[in-house]
């Protein structure tokens, strides 16, 4: 026969152990050798070969290479879609800037909001860099699309039976086992895209900016944006003009995770209160029979 005091003890310990593991996250585990891509927008000429290579590598479409010579697409600003994991946009020269072509794709954040929002773990941050997607786990809630800072994930609305969330994979089938570079990096004729260790790329980016201060603005987009991203850009034009979103240096996932985990940690209080209430009610129910 447990006494009231013993019951309260057990209840208290149980709630505490239940709540303890849910703590504010410091982000996913990352390898110090993790890789990324540096895009030098001053070298990009908008040839759209990356789009062609991407479509082929991911079996998204089978247009011939000539199809991508069409520059009329630059008339409208484009975003990645379910059949185009990457698109190049052209920004004409203005009074303050030169003509710049800028590639858009999943940035593969260091602390991705989509991974944080995914309730089934279909999206995962690989310690080596890529944000991977497991279609078998995905339930199609599309929280990732809402969560993404860069509005990248696209959803196959036209696929009625097995729709998937589609976004750049950083060619993880090749890059994770070290057998190759992403398709877009491989094809880029001017090597505006450099694939390598993120730490090395940051050094190269800083070196290029330091050596050619007239050519570049002093900003590596993705070094700190949204807590840092695997894709990083250097440019001669302000990133605001290139429609790169202005995001803070902290990953939005940090904010949401802190709030949410904080609430759950705080639940130990209400739970204990509830336990106390239940125990009191039980005790009060017993009282008449005693007396």
């Amino acid at each position: 026969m447990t006494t009231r005091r013993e019951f309260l003890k057990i209840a208290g310990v149980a709630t505490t152990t239940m709540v303890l593991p849910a703590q504010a996250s410091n982000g996913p585990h990352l390898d110090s050798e993790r890789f990324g891509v540096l895009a030098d927008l001053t070298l990009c000429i908008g040839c759209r070969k990356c789009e062609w290579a991407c479509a082929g590598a991911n079996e998204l479409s089978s247009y011939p290479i000539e199809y991508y010579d069409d520059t009329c697409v630059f008339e409208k600003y484009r975003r990645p879609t379910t059949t185009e994991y990457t698109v190049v946009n052209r920004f004409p020269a203005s009074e303050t800037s030169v003509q710049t072509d800028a590639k858009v794709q999943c940035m593969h954040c260091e602390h991705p909001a989509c991974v944080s929002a995914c309730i089934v773990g279909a999206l995962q941050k690989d310690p080596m860099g890529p944000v991977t997607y497991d279609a078998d786990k995905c339930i199609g809630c599309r929280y990732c699309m809402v969560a993404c800072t860069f509005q990248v994930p696209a959803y196959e609305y036209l696929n009625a039976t097995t729709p998937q969330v589609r976004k750049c994979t950083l060619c993880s089938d090749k890059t994770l086992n070290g057998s190759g570079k992403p398709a877009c990096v491989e094809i880029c004729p001017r090597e505006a895209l450099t694939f390598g260790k993120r730490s090395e790329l940051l050094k190269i980016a800083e070196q290029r900016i330091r050596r050619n201060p007239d050519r570049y603005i002093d900003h590596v987009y993705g070094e700190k944006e949204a807590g840092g991203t695997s894709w990083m850009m250097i440019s001669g034009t302000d990133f605001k003009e290139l429609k790169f979103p202005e995001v803070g240096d902290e990953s939005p996932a940090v904010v949401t995770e802190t709030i949410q985990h904080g609430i759950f940690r705080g639940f130990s209080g209400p739970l204990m209160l509830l336990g106390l209430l239940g125990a009191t009610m039980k005790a009060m129910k017993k009282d008449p029979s005693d007396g």
Partner: protein
Amino acid sequence: MFKQIFLIFLLLVTAAFGQLVDKDHATTHPERSVNTCLECKDCHTCDNPTREAPCLTSCPRHSHHFYGQHTSGEGPDVVIIDQLKNHYGPVAFAHRLHSAMSEMTGGCNNCHHYSEKDGVIPSCKECHLEESDDLSISMPSLKGAYHRQCINCHRDWAHDNACSFCHEPTDSEIPENLDTTDIVGVPHPRIQATSSYNYVTSYEDGPIVTFHHDDHVTLFGGQCSDCHKGDSCSRCHDETKQVQQINHLTSCCSCHQERDCLFCHSTQPKPPFQHRLTTGWDLEPYHTKTACKTCHNNPGSFKTPSAHCNDCHIHWDSGSFDHKITGLVLSEDHLDNDCVDCHSDRNFELQPECSECHDEITYPEELPGEKFR
């Protein structure tokens, strides 16, 4: 004795510690951690580089080490770049031409950013690897190096990224009669011109003028210099990106002497010239390669041919000529006719006459056989 053993022990410990420090340095050094084949001397000139005084060797690209004194006449005439062919054929780079052009600006080191102390220019592939590895990550590979050099100027001047500007598409057919040696009187690399242009003019009755460049070059046998003689380089290689006004009085009217504006001007784009549609006489299949002037020898007038069929086909007569090649198989009744029975005066361009034999029959309402094409 004890003292000696202690000293030896101390030495061993020091040596081991030294090894440890060296090894530690080797693995933590940013470049060494990437590639262990790299020797210290590869980057540092002194024996004991420190963080404060690294005594690094200078990178050829960024210091522009160029000692050479060369003239445009030196070096190869044409360089074939085919190390990296995949979708496109090899590139024939007109080296002599480019070196002549670069004499107007920066000279050889416009492109050759590095040469040995004795002035010898190494080829691109001596430094730039075919595949960049982790160590050379900040240096473009051969593919990147070539493209960065070429596209810089070609993009500014031609406003075009097309691969075919340098790379011959492997499946293309080059028009044989295209003479590329006569533009502005100097040899010029092959030009890929737009096949047709639609000019919008201020002429109200027919604002649109369609100019089929392809037709003029391949079909009408025009030479580049017929229209482009005396063009300045900046007509095509303009950095100002301003479309130059075309003076049609000199460029078009030097050949077209029509006084009818609507010959060129129209309210909608015109299709390319097809002999069959315009004249009713099909060049297919035997006369497609015949030059216009073979039959139309009167300058400025193409209305009627100046030459006639039997100027060339002198052996045509009823016994030797297979009428089938005209697309009309003669019926048995007509097989034995003489040519002049239908084609009076042996003028084969004129409509054949049936009235010689038949009262009520006219060509082409009724045919002397069966038409199959």
